[in-house]
C-alpha cells in the first residue's frame, strides 16, 4: 500500500500551472503580464492613485526549453508600493491575498496568479522575480529577488538591496525573465491585451514597448479613479447549506433573528414572516445560534430558500461608464464610428452584474469580409482565450446582426471592420477555470449581454442607415454629374450660347448639386485675406493718431469675426452670400474713407 502524503498549495500549482494560464510558452508571457498589470491597477485604485504603468517586453535570447525564447517582462507602476516584508508573501506564496472572497469587483480575487508567474520563472529560468518597491514612508527603495519555496508555499528573498529610486515617491517595478514565446496580435496577442486594458481603464496611462515595436503611450482620458464599491452582505439565496452553517460560526452566539438580519442582505421583518410561513419556527428566532442543532439549521435553510426575497443589491458593482468608454475608444485608434451602452446593474443567477458594450469602427482596421474583433472583459480584465465557450461570444453570436445592417452567417460572429468590446463586471463572476479565461454562460447572463448588444446595435443601425442615405445621395449626385455636362453642352450647342454662359450653367449645376462648397470656401478665404489686409491698414492708420479710424478698425474686426463665425456654421450657400456681402461692405467702407 502506497504511503499517503500531503502537498503544499505551491506544490500543487507548480505541477498544474496550466490550470492558471501557463499552458504554453505563449500564454505564459501573456499571463505573467496580465497578473502583474492586474495587481498594479488594483493597488492603485484601492489607494485612489491614477495609475501610470510602464511595460517593456523583450526577447533576451534563446530560452531553456525547446522552441522557446528567454523573455524579459518589466512592469513598473506608480501604486502605493509594497512594504519589503510583504513582497515575498505577495510574489512567493499562493493564496496570500488581500482580496480573497471579499465580494468586490477587483481584478485579482484569489492570490494565485502572480505567485504562479514567479513559479514559472523559477521553473523555466531558475530565478524567480525581481521586485523593486518603495512606499511613501520609505526613504530608499528595496530591490529584492524572490523565489517560491515550493515545499513550504512561501516566498523566499534570495537577494536584497536598497537604492535611491530617483523621482519615484512610491511604486513597484517587477521583472520576470521567463521561457516563453511572443505573440503580439490576434486574440491571444500581447498588443491586443494592452489595447483592451487601455480601453476599459480610461484613467490609465500606459507606456509600453513590446519586442521591436516603438514605445507607445496611451494617455489616460479620465482623471477620475474609479472607486471599487464595498462588498454587500451575502444574499441568502446564493448560499449552500454548508456555507450557511459555516456563516453562523462567524457571528458568535447571537439570536437567529439578529443573525439573519445582520449577516445577510435583503432579510427584513417581512422576510422573516415569510420564513416562518415556510417552516421556520417562531421560537427559533429568539434562540442563540449555539443552541440551534443541525436538523434545525437545515429546516431554517430550507425555509429561507422557499421564501421569495428581494433580489440582491447591485450597489457592489463597478462600471466603466459610457463616457469613459467613449473617450477610451480613441486610445485604440482613429475611430470612424462608435456606440457605447452601459446597462443598469442587473441580477443574474442571484449575482449583481453590469454589462457594458462598446461597438467601434476604426479607420484602417479590419475589413468587410472578416469577422468583427471581439474584445471580452471580465472585471475590466481582457479575456483572450477559449473564446468559443465564453458567455460573451455566445451572446454576440445569438444576436441577429443582419437587422442592424451587418453581415452575419448563421450562429457566428458578424462581419465587418468593427471592434466589439464587451465588459462584464461583477463581484462574483463565474469563470470556467482558475485561469479566468472564459465566463461561464448562464441563460440570465447571456440574455443580459444580448440586451446590451442589441441596444448598441440599434445605435449602430441608425448610423449605418444614415451612412447608406448619405451614400445614396452621393450616388444620385454622381449620376446627375454624369449627364449634367452633356445636358449643358447640348443646350449650349442648340442655343449657340457663349462659353461664359456655358461656364455659368456648369457652375449653376454644381450649386444645384451642392458641389460649390470648395469654391465658396476659396472665395471666403480670399475675402478673409482681403479683410486682414484692410485690418492691418486700419491699425496702421489708427497708430498714426486718427482716433475715429481706430474705432472703426476695431468695429470692423469685431464684425468680421462675428461674421466669420456665423459663416462657418452656415451652409455653403449662406457662406458664399456672407462673403459677397462682406466684400460689398468693405468696398463701401473704403469708399467712405476715401
Amino acid at each position: 500500500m502506497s504511503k499517503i502524503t500531503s502537498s503544499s498549495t505551491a506544490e500543487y500549482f507548480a505541477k498544474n500551472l496550466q490550470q492558471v494560464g501557463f499552458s504554453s510558452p505563449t500564454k505564459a508571457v501573456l499571463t505573467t503580464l496580465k497578473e502583474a498589470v492586474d495587481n498594479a491597477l488594483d493597488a492603485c485604485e484601492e489607494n485612489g492613485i491614477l495609475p501610470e504603468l510602464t511595460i517593456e517586453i523583450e526577447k533576451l535570447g534563446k530560452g531553456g526549453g525547446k522552441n522557446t525564447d528567454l523573455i524579459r517582462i518589466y512592469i513598473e507602476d506608480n501604486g502605493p508600493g509594497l512594504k519589503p516584508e510583504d513582497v515575498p508573501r505577495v510574489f512567493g506564496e499562493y493564496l496570500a491575498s488581500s482580496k480573497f472572497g471579499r465580494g468586490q469587483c477587483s481584478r485579482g480575487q484569489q492570490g494565485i496568479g502572480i505567485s504562479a508567474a514567479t513559479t514559472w520563472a523559477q521553473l523555466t529560468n531558475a530565478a524567480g522575480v525581481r521586485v523593486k518597491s518603495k512606499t511613501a514612508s520609505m526613504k530608499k527603495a528595496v530591490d529584492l529577488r524572490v523565489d517560491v519555496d515550493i515545499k513550504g508555499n512561501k516566498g523566499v528573498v534570495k537577494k536584497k538591496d536598497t537604492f535611491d529610486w530617483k523621482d519615484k515617491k512610491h511604486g513597484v517595478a517587477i521583472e520576470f525573465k521567463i521561457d516563453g514565446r511572443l505573440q503580439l496580435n490576434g486574440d491571444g496577442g500581447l498588443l491586443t491585451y494592452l489595447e483592451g486594458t487601455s480601453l476599459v481603464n480610461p484613467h490609465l496611462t500606459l507606456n509600453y514597448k513590446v519586442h521591436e515595436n516603438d514605445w507607445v503611450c496611451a494617455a489616460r482620458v479620465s482623471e477620475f479613479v474609479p472607486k471599487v464599491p464595498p462588498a454587500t452582505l451575502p444574499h441568502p439565496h446564493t448560499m449552500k447549506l454548508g456555507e450557511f452553517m459555516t456563516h453562523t460560526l462567524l457571528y458568535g452566539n447571537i439570536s437567529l433573528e439578529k443573525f439573519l438580519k445582520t449577516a445577510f442582505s435583503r432579510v427584513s421583518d417581512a422576510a422573516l414572516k415569510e420564513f416562518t410561513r415556510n417552516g421556520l419556527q417562531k421560537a427559533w428566532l429568539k434562540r442563540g445560534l449555539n443552541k440551534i442543532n443541525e436538523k434545525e439549521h437545515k429546516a431554517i435553510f430550507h425555509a429561507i430558500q422557499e421564501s421569495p426575497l428581494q433580489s440582491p443589491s447591485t450597489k457592489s458593482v463597478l462600471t466603466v461608464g459610457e463616457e469613459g468608454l467613449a473617450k477610451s475608444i480613441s486610445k485604440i485608434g482613429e475611430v470612424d464610428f462608435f456606440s457605447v451602452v452601459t446597462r443598469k446593474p442587473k441580477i443574474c443567477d442571484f449575482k449583481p452584474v453590469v454589462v457594458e458594450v462598446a461597438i467601434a469602427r476604426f479607420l484602417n482596421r479590419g475589413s468587410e469580409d472578416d469577422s468583427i474583433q471581439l474584445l471580452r472583459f471580465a472585471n475590466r480584465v481582457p479575456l483572450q482565450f477559449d473564446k468559443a465557450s465564453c458567455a460573451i461570444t455566445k451572446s454576440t453570436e445569438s444576436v441577429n446582426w443582419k437587422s442592424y445592417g451587418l453581415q452575419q452567417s448563421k450562429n457566428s460572429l458578424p462581419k465587418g471592420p468593427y471592434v466589439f468590446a464587451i465588459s462584464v463586471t461583477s463581484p462574483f463572476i463565474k469563470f470556467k477555470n482558475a485561469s479566468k479565461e472564459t465566463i461561464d454562460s448562464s441563460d440570465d447572463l447571456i440574455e443580459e449581454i444580448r440586451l446590451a448588444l442589441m441596444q448598441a446595435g440599434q445605435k449602430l443601425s441608425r448610423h449605418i442607415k444614415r451612412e447608406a442615405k448619405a451614400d445614396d445621395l452621393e450616388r444620385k449626385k454622381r449620376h446627375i454629374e454624369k449627364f449634367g455636362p452633356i445636358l449643358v453642352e447640348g443646350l449650349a450647342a442648340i442655343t449657340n450660347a457663349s462659353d461664359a454662359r456655358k461656364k455659368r450653367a456648369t457652375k449653376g449645376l454644381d450649386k444645384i448639386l451642392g458641389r460649390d462648397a470648395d469654391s465658396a470656401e476659396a472665395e471666403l478665404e480670399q475675402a478673409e485675406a482681403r479683410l486682414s489686409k484692410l485690418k492691418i491698414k486700419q491699425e496702421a492708420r489708427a497708430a498714426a493718431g486718427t482716433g475715429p479710424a481706430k474705432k472703426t478698425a476695431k468695429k470692423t474686426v469685431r464684425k468680421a469675426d462675428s461674421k466669420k463665425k456665423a459663416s462657418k456654421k452656415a451652409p455653403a450657400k449662406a457662406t458664399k452670400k456672407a462673403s459677397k456681402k462682406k466684400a460689398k461692405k468693405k468696398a463701401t467702407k473704403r469708399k467712405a474713407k476715401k
Partner: protein
Amino acid sequence: MAAKTPKRKVQTGAEITRKAKALCDVMLKDLESAERPVLSAVKCSLDNAIYDSKLGYLTPGDKIVRSELNVSSVQKLARTVFLLDILLNNVSTGAVNTKRELYYMAKGLVKSNPRIKPIDFDDQPESDSIIDFITDLLEVYREEINCYANDRGGQTYSQQLVVTETLADGTTATIDLSQLGTAAFQPKNRPQALKLKAKKKIDFCLVVESEGTANTLVSNGFTKRNNCILMGAQGVPSNGVRGWCKLIQDQLKVPMYFFGDLDAYTMQNIYRTLKAGSAASLIRNADFSAPDVRFLGVLPEDIKKYDLNYYEVKDKDASELRALKKAKDVLANDPFFKDKKNKKLANVLHFLIKNKVRCEQQALFSVNPKDPLMPEKIILKKIKEGSYI
C-alpha cells in the same frame, strides 16, 4: 359622321426651330441661375385622354408631364437635348430619317465621342420614346421634324382610285391603282403629300384587319366586282394607315368599314386606334384617325347568323386572357368605350368577357368551302343590311 375636325396649323421648320431654341434657352438660363430646368409636355396616356363623340377621336386633357432635373430624369433630359440637336439639324437641312435610322445615328455619335457615352441607347425603343417625348414637348407631328416611321400596313387595292403624290422636289407623281394588277399601293407615311381622286364613284372602303385576307379577297376578284377600296391594316394600324384612312375619309367621303376578328384585342387595340386614335399619340389623333369607320364584323350575332366557327378562350391562352382582362379595364377607364355613342362597341367587349369566346375573320372562308366567294357575299350582305356598328 364625325364633326369636321378643326384644321390644325402645320408648323414650319423655322417655327419648330424657334420654339425648340427658346425652350433650350430657358433651360440654360435656369441652370445659369442654379435652378433646376424643367421640361413640360402634354401627358399622352389614357388617363389624360378625352373622347368627344362629336370630334370622334381622343384628344389630350390638361395633364402635363414635368421632367425636372433630378436623378431619375437627368438622363432623359440629356438624351432629349442630344436628339433634339440632331432633329433640328435635319429640319434645317431638309434631311429625313426614320426612327430606326436616328437610333443608329445617335448610337454612332455616342460611340465616337467618349464624353457623351452615358447617354448611349441600349435599344431602339429607348431612342423612340425620346423622339416621341420631343414631339409631345414641341406639340409637333413626328413628320414635321422630318422623322418617319417605316411604312407598315395599308396595302390598298382599287380599280377606281387614283393617287397624286407631291414629291419632295415639288414635282408630282400620279398612281392609278387599277394599273397595278394584283399588286397593292403602299401609302407613304406622309398622307399630307397625297391627293386622291375617284375615276368612278366608289361605293365603300373596306379595311381588313389581316393583310393576307385582304390579298385573298383581291385575288378572288373582290375589287373587280365592286367599286371599292380594299385595304389591309396589318394588325394595329400604323400612323401611315391611320393617316391614309383619314385621307380617304376626308377627300373621298366614302363609307368606310372595318372587318376583323371578333376578339377583345381587335376591338380595343386595332379598331379603337383606327377610329379614334391612340392614347400614346393624343396630340396627333386629329390627323391620324378615321372616326367615320364602322365596325362591320365579325359581330357576335354573325356567329349564329352565318354559322361561323368559333372557339372558347382557354385558360392556357395567356395572351387572350390578358386581352380579356384589359377589356375589363378598358370598359372602366377608356373614354372611347365609356361614351354612350359607342355603347354597342362596348357591348361587344361585354359579350367577349362574358362568353370567353373568339371568332376569327377567316371563319367566313369555312361557311361554304365550295364557294370561294362566300366571304365576299357575306361582307356585301352585311353592308347592304346595315349589319355593322
